[in-house]
């Protein structure tokens, strides 16, 4: 059928259904259009915009074979309490078929405080495992071969310190650094914009990040040095287009910082990875994943003139949306997570964490974690969604939405460029404000009933309070404090002092790469807090920009 013919038929169709389509107030946020046709993608050139998997602009995926080669890495984010407890959970996950580890650290660790610091009180071991020194890291990976497993660490402001500890543990296991595989999150910009676990101001933070890029490109070449994260931006309330736009703007800022520090784009860009959220609207999410690959490929090619294909491939980890889990009727969350998993898989993710049904209530129990992992396995082995590559390509709706999300994201990226880049936009509070406005709108839509959340504002029912939630032992903090004290009594405190003094000097010299100095310090069993305090002294601390 010619486009003219389709257009004419479409007009007839629209006229015929105009009166027949019910108008639900709660569906106001849906796209105005109800039917997509070839006309919606008539300007989309297959070769330029879609193409083949593994071929620029990678809309259909970064690998030629995708899941016909191998499935995504089923990587469950876990960690709580002490290193011993978390080590047990990791080994359980590996026995159950998880193919990668993902470490959650507690908040004091994420913000560079020791468990013994007064500010850590009540927080030790709560949202992740407490790591105070190399000793804890040795326990955490006890009997886990770091040469075989790939490990993702959700650590940002003190990423350099935790990476150094990981390298040091591997060294003790006899695994050379160039064999290590894994990822550190290391994305400070989204901490300022959305997640809140920052320590230092932007400038020294960007320096630490580029130091890691440089060090790893020479010494830990298989390591993903950053996971540029939209996940938390989305959790904070952004839209799908904002999620990828703000994150790619952050990615641009990291590349510019690294180039300014003297690195060449193709030396580090291949080790950059991304981290996306899988939200409830399945098809919108698939379009978002596809659009993100296309935008990044264009950014790398046209803006940074990357030559290496690897630099242009946006590889990403996905986590299902924590903010979409409901405390009401928590078993419904299993279904939500299954749909989100479907979106991530049809969107071509490289690895996936699935949330557990009880996470709106507490940390997940072992049983809930198992269901979440099984969800991935069912999608992989039973659903057929992984049988062909990019199964939704060619859908008028999905291709058209991929285009429109891409266009919306470019508008934001341009706006951020005009403000002077992501760092300046965050310092001006622009990105935070955009996210907050979207979050507020979402909440008001839920409260007015314009947006339905099953079990929350519709289909509610009386429920028994949930039973069997995981409780972190409140004595964990005391136990961990005692461990730190005992460790400090045993170590060579003179060596610690010397290493910290050396680190301080290195911090003061902007041209010095800090990684070797941090590695030397962790090997003396200097604590995370001691190391971060040295850096706080030299770098200062970030003061948040808040505008409501």
């Amino acid at each position: 059928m010619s486009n003219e013919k389709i257009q004419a038929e479409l007009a007839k169709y629209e006229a015929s259904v105009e009166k027949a389509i019910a108008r639900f107030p709660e569906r106001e946020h849906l796209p105005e259009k109800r039917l997509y046709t070839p006309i919606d993608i008539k300007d989309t050139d297959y070769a330029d915009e879609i193409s083949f998997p593994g071929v620029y602009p990678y809309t259909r995926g970064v690998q030629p074979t995708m899941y016909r080669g191998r499935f995504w890495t089923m990587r469950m984010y876990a960690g709580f309490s002490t290193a011993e407890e978390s080590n047990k959970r990791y080994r359980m996950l590996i026995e159950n078929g998880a193919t990668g580890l993902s470490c959650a650290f507690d908040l004091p660790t994420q913000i560079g405080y020791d468990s013994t610091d007064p500010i850590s009180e009540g927080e030790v071991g709560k949202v992740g495992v407490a790591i105070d020194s190399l000793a804890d890291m040795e326990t955490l990976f006890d009997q886990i071969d770091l040469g075989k497993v790939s490990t993702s660490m959700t650590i940002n402001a003190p990423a350099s310190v935790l990476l150094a500890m990981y390298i040091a543990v591997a060294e003790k296991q006899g695994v050379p650094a160039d064999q290590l595989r894994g990822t550190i999150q290391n994305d400070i910009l989204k901490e300022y914009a959305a997640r809140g676990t920052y320590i230092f101001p932007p400038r020294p933070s960007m320096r630490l990040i580029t130091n890691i890029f440089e060090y790893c490109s020479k010494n830990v070449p298989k390591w993903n040095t950053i996971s540029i994260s939209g996940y938390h931006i989305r959790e904070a309330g952004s839209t799908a287009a904002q999620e990828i736009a703000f994150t790619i703007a952050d990615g641009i800022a990291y590349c510019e910082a690294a180039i300014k520090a003297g690195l060449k784009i193709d030396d580090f860009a291949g080790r950059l990875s991304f981290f996306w959220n899988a939200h409830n609207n399945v098809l919108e999410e698939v379009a978002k994943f596809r659009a993100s690959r296309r935008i990044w490929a264009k950014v790398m090619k046209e803006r940074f003139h990357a030559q290496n294909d690897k630099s242009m491939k946006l590889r990403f980890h996905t986590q299902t949306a924590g903010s979409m889990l409901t405390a009401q009727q928590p078993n419904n969350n299993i279904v939500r997570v299954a749909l989100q998993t479907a979106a991530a898989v049809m969107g071509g993710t490289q690895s996936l964490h699935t949330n557990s049904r009880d996470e709106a209530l507490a940390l997940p129990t072992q049983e809930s974690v198992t269901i979440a992992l099984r969800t991935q396995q069912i999608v992989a082995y039973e659903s057929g969604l992984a049988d062909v590559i990019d199964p939704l390509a060619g859908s008028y709706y999905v291709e058209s939405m991929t285009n429109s999300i891409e266009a919306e994201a470019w508008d934001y990226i341009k706006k951020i460029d005009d403000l002077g880049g992501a760092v300046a936009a965050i310092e001006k509070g622009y990105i935070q404000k955009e996210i907050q406005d979207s979050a507020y709108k979402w909440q008001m839509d839920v409260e007015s009933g314009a947006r339905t959340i099953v079990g929350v504002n519709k289909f509610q029912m009386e429920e028994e309070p949930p039973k069997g939630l995981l409780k972190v032992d409140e004595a964990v903090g005391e136990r961990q404090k005692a461990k730190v004290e005992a460790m400090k009594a045993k170590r060579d405190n003179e060596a610690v002092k010397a290493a910290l003094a050396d680190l301080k000097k290195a911090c003061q010299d902007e041209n010095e790469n800090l990684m070797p100095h941090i590695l030397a310090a962790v090997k003396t069993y200097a604590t995370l807090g001691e190391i971060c305090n040295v850096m706080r002294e030299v770098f200062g601390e970030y003061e948040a920009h808040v505008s409501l």
Partner: protein
Amino acid sequence: MDIAEELLKGNRLALSRAITAIENEYDEATDIMKKLYPHTGHAYVLGITGPPGAGKSTLSDKIAREYRAQGKTVGIIAVDPTSPFTGGAILGDRIRMNGLTLDEGVFIRSMGTRGSLGGLSHKTADAVKAMDAFGKDIIIVETVGVGQSEVDIVKAADTTMVVLIPGMGDDIQAIKAGILEIGDLYCINKSDLDGADKLVREINMMLDLDSLMTDWRPPITKVVASQNEGIAELLGTVDKHRTYIEGNGELAKRRTKRTRDEMLDILSSNIGSYIKSKIVDSGRLDGYVEQIKQHKTDPYTVIGEVMGEMLK
């Protein structure tokens, strides 16, 4: 508790409650102020104003720290606009001063402009007096320099500082014109941004054209508040201004004028509410309005009658 008595003994909660009484116009506020008044007049009041986004709160934070380092105690009153639509407000200045919260020598109070713009300057002035009686050496009053009433607030300060930042484009022209005559000092914040020197030149040009200029020419100081750069120098200019107005009698003149303005302000506000309560509560107002609407009489005649009756 006897709020005034406790306040004078140094009870922080009493100071806080006194300001609430002033803000909410509780009946006891008048009694509190009567008891506090003899203990006022010691603090030096620094007004800080400027357009939104000029970094006033960060600047107040750094200024307060500098005064603390000099051993002085500090009170801060941060005024933020109330939404005219909802009557609510986000009072967000405090967030930039979190580091001062636990310093016992500092007391920070956020205030919303609320509806009655007329009464605001008078309420702020009373809050300043409460902090003064409490024993604060320096009181900083910080407000967005956009509306007349907010300008009135800072005009009540001993020294008024106008904060500007580079690169605000044409918007700043109007603001500059509006607040030019009230600045005893100018502070260019975020002066590491492009355009700082241009802004200094522009202000100098305007000062050159100011025909009312006395022999005090407002100094212009460049700072980067977030980096704590230039703060000591800025306070040097505050001290210089203070010495200047103390020496030539200007401070005494300003305070006399302020007392006079306050007297008239309170008087007219009290008379106003007295008359209003008389004619509104008795329902007479509705009657008048109806008659005026029907053109049986006019507002001027009615007011003449009411005034004659009330003030005889």
